[in-house]
């Protein structure tokens, strides 16, 4: 990431807030996402992470504040228009068309893109098929084309969810707790996939599994009590701690033992004025 990218973020929110009645779920959030980065949002349960990404993806309308994508104000866009402009959300609780085959699930995501390129006429089924196969291949489940989505093992359902996100050719892919409920081997495969994808898109990751966060994220945003507390650079962990280990409720101090900086070049992105947390001090010792 260079300074240019930092000046013109892909996504920028200003004072974004959402309240449900008297409950303030998201409060004055200013979030900048740079093109091509993998950003993780962490924080305890109920911190407002899912509400925040729901605002970004259009599932919820913000109470106040604004969202800009490529400097264009998309605050008032409906969910479907937000997807069309490139923000794709994959669900925390897997939301598939569980009575339809994997092929149909991915084809639904694929054909909308094709629709647009071709004007009003739908694209040919043969074109759709090529793309569906490519995407299923990419997430590593090419043999499951005809399997009914609801009959897939859970890990594969998560992958299918990501496949549908991919097929919508996003600029920003939002993954809401993608590794929740996955086995260790599946998590490793998943991390590999996400890293591969980050070459062609920006990824916003909500994750409780600190191992995954530290492995993938280029920047970590910590949320608590509806607000962003800090933006941190990740501390890469050594190989000592076991993967798949979850660290819930560690929002304020997500530091696993034996960590150290691995990406010094990200220091420039630290938000100025934000209080240096103990976390950061540690890093420079």
């Amino acid at each position, binding site marked *: 990431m260079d300074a240019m990218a930092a000046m013109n973020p892909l996504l920028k929110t200003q004072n974004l807030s959402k309240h449900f009645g008297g409950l303030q779920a998201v409060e004055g959030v200013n979030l900048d996402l740079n093109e091509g980065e993998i950003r993780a949002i962490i924080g305890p349960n109920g911190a407002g992470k899912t509400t925040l990404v729901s605002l970004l*993806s259009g*599932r919820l309308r913000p109470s106040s504040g604004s969202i800009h994508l490529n400097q264009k104000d998309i605050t008032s866009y*409906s*969910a*479907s*228009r937000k*997807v*069309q402009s490139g923000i*794709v*959300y994959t*669900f925390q609780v897997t*939301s*598939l*068309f*569980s*009575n*339809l*085959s994997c*092929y*149909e699930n991915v*084809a*639904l*995501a694929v*054909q*909308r893109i094709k*629709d647009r390129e071709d004007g009003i006429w*739908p*694209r040919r*089924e043969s074109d*759709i098929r090529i793309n569906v196969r490519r995407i299923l291949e990419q997430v590593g489940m090419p043999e499951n084309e*005809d399997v*009914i989505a609801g009959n897939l093992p859970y890990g594969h359902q998560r992958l299918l969810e990501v496949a*549908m996100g991919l097929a*919508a050719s996003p600029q920003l892919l939002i993954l809401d707790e993608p590794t929740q409920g996955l086995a260790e081997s599946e998590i490793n495969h998943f991390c590999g996939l996400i890293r591969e994808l980050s070459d062609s898109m920006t990824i916003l990751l909500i994750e409780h599994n600190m191992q995954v966060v530290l492995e993938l994220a280029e920047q970590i945003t910590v949320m608590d009590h509806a607000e962003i507390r800090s933006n941190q650079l990740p501390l890469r962990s050594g190989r000592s701690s076991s993967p798949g280990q979850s660290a819930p409720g560690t929002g304020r101090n997500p530091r696993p033992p034996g960590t150290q900086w691995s990406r010094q070049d990200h220091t420039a992105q630290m938000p100025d004025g934000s209080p240096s947390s103990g976390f950061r001090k540690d890093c420079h010792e």
Partner: protein
Amino acid sequence: MNRRAPRKTAMLMAGVLVFLFLLQFILPAYHHSTFSKIMVLASYAVGFNILLGYTGLMSLGHAMFFSTGMYVTGICVYHFGLTGIPALGIGLIITVFVSMLIGAVALRTSGVSFLIVTLMFGQTAFLSVLYFDQFTLGQDGFTLTKELQPLVLGSTSFSYTDPNFKYNAAWLLFAVCLILSNLLILSPIGRVLIAIRENEERTQMLGYNTYLYKLFALTLSGTLSGLAGSVHALLFSYVGATFAEIHHSIAPLLWTLLGGVGTTLGPLVGTGIMHYLIDFTSGWTSAYLLIVGAILVLLVIGAPQGLMGMIRQKWMQWLP
């Protein structure tokens, strides 16, 4: 439908249509006319099924669309002396508009509310028929036997009362509805409609404006139902308020459930079975609805997806 099979589907549908066409040469007179009726009503059910079976929206006001077509065409012939085809055309245009208008309002709701709103619209349509009795002749309705001129094609003319003409006109209507519904379901638009049925929020989150797709489905559904109503008026020479009543909205629901919701052949199968079921049992006892009801309950227990749905599940997974 787990896997799209356009070629097999085309062959099956062509087979069904050819079979129905050839059937007219071997059927005895009584069943000949019964089949004409079944094919017209099955077209109505095909229209209904596009909304219920493929978009997941249950309407209880479809008699409104059927009777819009029926009354507009009937009134054009009865009061304005038009011949069949122009009356049919006007009926078609008006139903498109009515469906779109009702859809634009009713689709602001979903689920049970949608059911109630369509029911209310349906009742409004029924009461309108009774209210504007100088045109509709109220509850009794009117016949077109005297007013309807024969259909002239080139040098030959066909009487609407001729059983052979009836059969082939009904067959043509059904063929149009069946082919349209299959084309729709195998198209990318049909894929989106099915997705809406399965999980509307997810469909939105894939970037589809589901409201527009639902409006399209409702308009097509209402239009096919209205077309069936228009043809019904012309072929059976009667226009009456019973076709606007609530039970005529429920009828296509029963036919579709019986034949298989969300199967393109289900409406035909269901309409046919129900028609003959009522026909046989009513000739036998006056409590025929009791027997029909019992048989339906058994069928629902044995094959909750309807007959074609069961066939799809067990043997022909590609069936649209």
